[in-house]
């Protein structure tokens, strides 16, 4: 089954497994290397056993670090280096001004005040939260269920076929996707015309102009596109389940369904928890591109979210400071959520990122 898995999914899984190994083995490493060096631990060394272990480890396997240099450089250049830009949130800034320099106008928390005093602030906040939380509630369990079901299929052929069918929509580009949605659900779209043909009211069915329809449309189209793709990670985790466990469960008379709950699910629980922590950390940032593309005057009531506000008010309107302040606020919420999720899962399941 692992043949069909992509290398990225496998890498993810390996990473997680090695994390676990790291933790369990942290104490053992030191002893192991001491034993290998034929150097019994004395009192002097006990003072910095970890450091010594690291040193030995580095001496032996340091060259492996070379492999993470590209990733490290990438993150440094594209994620950390631009971060000084958040200073703009505290400035009266225009493109062309230097961010740190003699001509920088510092305004303290003025931009945040402007942002929070926006009469619609709470609406935007609530819209963002609801859109993302509903998206999470639907979008998080779905791939797990799909992966468990696929994994339980007997016929490999059917499984393969379904899997391809499920993740194919992932490759449709965003703009094309929204175009399709408009053709089907928009005014004069397929559904609109059908409803009029079938004798619906003359005004027709205009889902793109109805605020209540925005969230379902956004969430279900997004999940339809991505549930198959997200299931790959879980399928990879499931492939690591020891067949012996299934054999044993079978011997004990466990049904197919029972085995899903008692064997498969516990096996992928660490993966689930890890991915949950990560997605909680991204909870407040659902992509603004798709929201913008789907936005119409009719659905503004539910479709104006923080990130579209940043785009429209900050970038289009030239209020870069306020836009950055809004973005920073969003990120802070994400970090807080991430820390809470991590802490909770550490307490409850003993799985955590740090």
């Amino acid at each position: 089954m692992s043949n069909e898995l992509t290398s990225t999914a496998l890498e993810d899984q390996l990473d997680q497994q090695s994390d676990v190994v790291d933790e369990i083995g942290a104490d053992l490493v030191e002893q192991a290397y001491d034993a290998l060096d034929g150097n019994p631990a004395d009192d002097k060394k006990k003072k910095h056993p970890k450091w010594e272990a690291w040193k030995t480890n580095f001496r032996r396997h340091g060259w492996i670090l070379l492999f993470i240099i590209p990733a490290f450089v990438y993150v440094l250049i594209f994620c950390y280096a631009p971060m000084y830009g958040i200073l703009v949130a505290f400035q009266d800034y225009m493109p062309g001004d230097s961010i740190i320099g003699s001509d920088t106008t510092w305004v303290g928390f003025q931009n945040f005040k402007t942002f929070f005093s926006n009469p619609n602030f709470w609406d935007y906040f609530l819209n963002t939260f609801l859109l993302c939380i509903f998206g999470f509630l639907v979008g998080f369990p779905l791939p797990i269920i799909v992966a468990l079901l696929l994994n339980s299929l007997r016929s490999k052929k059917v499984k393969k076929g379904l899997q391809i069918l499920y993740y194919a929509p992932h490759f449709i580009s965003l703009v094309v996707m929204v175009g399709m949605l408009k053709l089907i659900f928009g005014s004069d779209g397929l559904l609109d015309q059908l409803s009029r043909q079938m004798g619906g009211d003359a005004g027709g069915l205009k889902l793109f102009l109805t605020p209540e329809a925005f969230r379902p449309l956004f969430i279900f189209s997004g999940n339809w596109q991505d549930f198959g793709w997200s299931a790959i990670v879980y399928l990879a985790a499931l492939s690591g389940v020891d067949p012996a466990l299934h054999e044993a469960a079978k011997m004990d008379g466990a049904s197919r369904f029972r085995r899903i709950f008692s064997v498969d699910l516990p096996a992928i629980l660490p993966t689930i928890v890890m991915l949950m922590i990560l997605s909680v950390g991204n909870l407040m940032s659902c992509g603004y591109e798709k929201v913008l593309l789907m936005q119409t005057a009719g659905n503004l009531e539910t479709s104006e979210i923080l990130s579209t506000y940043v785009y429209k008010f900050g970038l289009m309107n030239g209020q870069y400071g306020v836009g950055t302040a809004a973005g920073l606020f969003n990120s802070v919420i994400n970090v807080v959520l991430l820390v809470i999720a991590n802490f909770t899962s550490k307490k409850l399941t003993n799985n955590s990122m740090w």
Partner: protein
Amino acid sequence: MKKIIIGVTATVLWVVCVTLFVVFAMGGGTNTEHQFTVLTVKEDAVKDYNSMPVFRELAQETGIDVNWIYNTSAQYSNNTDPVGTKGIDAIYHTGFSNLKLYDYGRRGRIVAIDEYMDSMPNFSRILTARPDIAEALKSPDGHIYSLPRVEEMGLKAYPNILYINKKWIEKLIDDGNLPAGVNLTKDQLTDGLDLYRWEFKAILQKFRDLDMDNNGNKDNEVPLTFVSGNWQGNESDLIASFGVPENREHKTILNGKITFTIEDEKWFKAITEMHDWCASGLISSASFDQDESQFLAHGQDGRYGAFYWWEKDTVLAKEYRDDYVIVLPLKDDDGNRYVGVSNEQEVEKGECVILSSCEDKEGLLSYFDKFFEPDYSAQLNYGSIKSGAFLPNKENGKLIPNDDHGAQSADDFRMRNAPYGVVYLTQETWDNSVQMESRAQLRLDNLNSYVKPYVFEGVATIPNLNYTQQELLELNTHEFSLSNNIASWYTQAVIGNTAPTRESWQNLLSVNRDSINAVLRINQAAYDRYIEATV
């Protein structure tokens, strides 16, 4: 080994190509032969400014050589810092807002033009003669940071004319299908058709129900359409017919006071009625999500029963143009007619800015000052004499527009040959130096006879107002959320599945009370200052 050699060669070639591309792409922009380089926003279809006769003439007369370089509007809108473009002296067609002009101005990145008035005799004469223009151009610090575009034809305040399909009404008369109570004869079907709103509605219902264009399909007719919220051809006048001076910003001057139309009881009544028209299919729902080009494309084959637009010729293909007649503003049940005015400005502020990095500001400004002379203004606005926009010889000292452009339509010709931008065309120009285009004259005549007489008493366009920095920032925040909220409520109220309730309307007003009050207060204060400065 062979593979490695091929791989290495391919990589090297790739790198060389990229390098060459980058070098050429970056090197292309610089040109040292010219005195000045000006960045302008221009679509590909518009002719090269550098070879346009009007700019050649200007270069000859002033001895100043300007090199024009271009951004398409798509490129320009993605350019977060056009003022930072290397090697340019000025930007033409900037489209900068008041706030942006001031932000650049107070940073000293664009030139305060009022400090160079000595090199600009034409411009300073205009500012002296027209204190309203001078006032409109000022930034919060009292400086003028941009050159304006002034095109006063008295058209922009009235951007909607209602046209109706005369042929379809004739068919109704012939077939005996005229709605009950509507007594129309074929003789009456000329420009200036006089209808009550209820009569108009009854006719639209017939347009909806019957196969008006005889193609066997009852459903392809569009009874009434417009482009909601567009600057021309929007639904404002339909709402205004209920007795409220509506425009697309829902904000107007009424007896010297800046007023929001949405607060008016009659506005709510109008919206309720609009909802009814939409729900029963009299107004196409496309009216609310189509843009100008879609509206124009759909209308060409004469399937619109009635529509709002400035002139019918752009909406309809040639063979359908005679089928439509102008309807006077609709009468309400008491026989009164009402029309609001738009807030479109005839003085546009951010047309051209000079960068502080320009080495000879006086020189470049004296060049742009020529743009304000009537002959140049006219050629910039309509196309040059040499390209055939005007007849070669003046009559009574007036430039006469040439209406014959061969196979090209007048719109096409102008789009390709006229750079637009900084011009000064006012009543004085039309009286003395340039004859108005026949199309504009026709539009003006139509407006004069069918629209202007019915404009609300005491209603006026809000002029270009001048704000303090604090006011600008406050306005920016409030206007953003307010216009969002109004647009969203309005669209739902009109095309939603349920009719708008009085509570939801009251709720809209109370939720946005702070914003409404703030915007009114700031606008009113600025308007009072404007009146003081110009009267």
